[in-house]
């Protein structure tokens, strides 16, 4: 296959986490990227998108030029990007505008090379015309093993996002997808299958939110300020104002909130807070930061040992008007506020993917609004009101404005 002048680049997605994989599939399947499309056959890809922070087949890199291929590496800000020939980099979390920019550079290079070859009339000099896929220059299927997308594709066909894709690619769909970033991409599990059960739990002690919760509790119990010592810098909890001070910029904080890095974190009383501006220049409302961190850490998972069948005991509504919300949160909280329901009851009764319910539970647990009732089992059924049709219409009206 030779790529035609101005035809679309063939993109192959590799070793990506499910969220990024699905996001990029959405991006390339929609009409949001005119210059590239998803590759169907692996060995024809012009561009491989690879997560530099995960394991990948490093043998590909030296052969990129020979194979007329390019790589776009996705990498964490703290990870040094590669600067090999035919490689480009995009910092995570991936911003579509930067990804499009890199794709444009690659497309431009390919087109320039094609033009130059056309001008010289020598097709054999076409270095960037197409990925080599025959003879000696064809990368072996082994070396391209990491580009096998079949399993991901299968997942994708079944997941929630695909439902949205079928409908449209307008802004409402984009907004709908946007919500998924908060809850991960775990599929519903069968609780009777122990292997699947393992996937839905995380160890809170490894995450920032757990230590923030501990700090607020310690502050409340002792009526004192608290220092949270982490390997990456300290956070300071001011008890009186209920504010957390730190020096992590948005990108770092986003990373810290979602990464299991805080196992060695210590929470200690701090009698005085000598404001060293350079150390603690950023302040955030404690509840809001805990809430966001718990959502980012959960990504559709529950704290280790959480019962799926005991009823949830809700004791207060989160102040949703001032907190980050994602799809279904009001509906789920409303069910818990009016019925003795377990986590599994909630998913089955409301017909909402489990990951939304687990994420909300984790966040509400972190701010102390829910816990598992050890006595009452989930009883399940929700009785419906007669006026449900008009309620639906009112909600549609509200959401459309």
């Amino acid at each position, binding site marked *: 296959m030779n790529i035609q002048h101005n035809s679309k680049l063939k993109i192959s997605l590799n070793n990506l986490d499910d969220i990024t994989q699905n996001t990029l599939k959405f991006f390339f399947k929609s009409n949001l990227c005119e210059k590239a499309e998803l590759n169907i056959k692996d060995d024809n890809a012009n561009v491989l998108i690879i997560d530099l922070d995960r394991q990948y087949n490093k043998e590909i890199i030296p052969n990129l030029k020979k194979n007329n291929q390019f790589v776009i590496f996705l990498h964490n800000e703290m990870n040094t990007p590669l600067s090999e020939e035919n490689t480009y980099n995009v910092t995570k979390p991936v911003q579509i505008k930067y990804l499009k920019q890199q794709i444009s550079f690659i497309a431009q290079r390919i087109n320039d090379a094609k033009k130059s070859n056309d001008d010289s009339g020598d097709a054999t000099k076409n270095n960037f015309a197409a990925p080599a896929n025959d003879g000696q220059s064809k990368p072996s299927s082994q070396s391209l093993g990491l580009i096998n997308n079949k399993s991901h594709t299968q997942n994708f066909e079944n997941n929630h996002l695909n439902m949205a894709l079928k409908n449209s690619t307008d802004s409402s769909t984009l907004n709908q997808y946007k919500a998924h970033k908060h809850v991960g991409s775990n599929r519903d599990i069968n609780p009777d299958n122990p292997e699947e059960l393992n996937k839905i739990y995380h160890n809170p002690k490894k995450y920032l939110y757990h230590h923030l919760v501990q700090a607020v509790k310690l502050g409340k119990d002792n009526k004192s300020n608290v220092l949270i010592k982490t390997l990456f810098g300290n956070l300071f909890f001011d008890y009186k104002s209920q504010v957390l001070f730190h020096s992590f910029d948005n990108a770092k904080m986003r990373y810290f909130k979602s990464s299991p890095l805080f196992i060695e974190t210590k929470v200690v009383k701090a009698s005085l807070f000598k404001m060293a501006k350079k150390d603690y220049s950023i302040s955030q409302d404690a509840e809001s930061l805990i809430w966001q961190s718990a959502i980012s850490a959960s990504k559709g998972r529950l704290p280790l040992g959480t019962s799926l069948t005991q009823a949830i005991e*809700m*004791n*207060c*509504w989160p*102040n*949703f*008007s*001032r907190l980050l919300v994602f799809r279904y949160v*009001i*509906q*789920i*909280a*409303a*069910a*818990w*506020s*009016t*019925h*003795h329901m377990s986590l599994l009851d909630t998913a089955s*009764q*409301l*017909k909402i993917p489990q990951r939304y319910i687990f994420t909300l539970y984790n966040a509400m647990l972190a701010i102390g609004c829910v816990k598992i009732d050890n006595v009452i089992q989930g009883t399940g059924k*929700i009785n*419906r*009101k007669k*006026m*449900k049709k*008009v*309620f*639906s*219409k*009112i*909600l*549609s*009206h*509200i*959401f459309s*404005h």
Partner: protein
Amino acid sequence: MKSSHKIIFSGPVGAGKTTAITSISDIPTVRTEESASDETKDLKDTTTVALDYGAIILQDNTRIHLYGTPGQKRFDFMWEILTNGGIGLLLLIDGSDSNAINNLKFFLSSFKNFIDKTSVVVGITKQDVNKKYNLEEYQEVLNKGLPVIPIYEIDARSRKDVSLMVETLLYTLDPKISI
């Protein structure tokens, strides 16, 4: 003839009922404000003496009536009339009022029959102006156990905040609503 549905906005004088209705109404709000002449005068220049009226007009022209009750306790005889047939109650409390907790208790108690039959969402306004109590202090006033009453800090001028209250009201009435 289309059937009629109504959502009730209540709360003490100056809590933002008129403003909240205006925030989400699809028609110009009908106000029945008059110059304040009693103790209300200390709180604001004009006040609602009968009721406020707005409406959400749905796509099929169904009208959801939005009624704001007068805030003064001497008009409480109107509250029962207004709530008759209502979908539920949005209760607004002025968070800058040092009597806010008592006001919350009073209104929850006054509308108890209606709330028991329907549902209520509480919005604490003016928390950014001069907050007298934290949200936890309001939550402590409420009964323990189910149903857990939703309380939000809101800005009555914000369509988003008032819409959140309506959304919450509807879902507490029926968590299974699908859109």
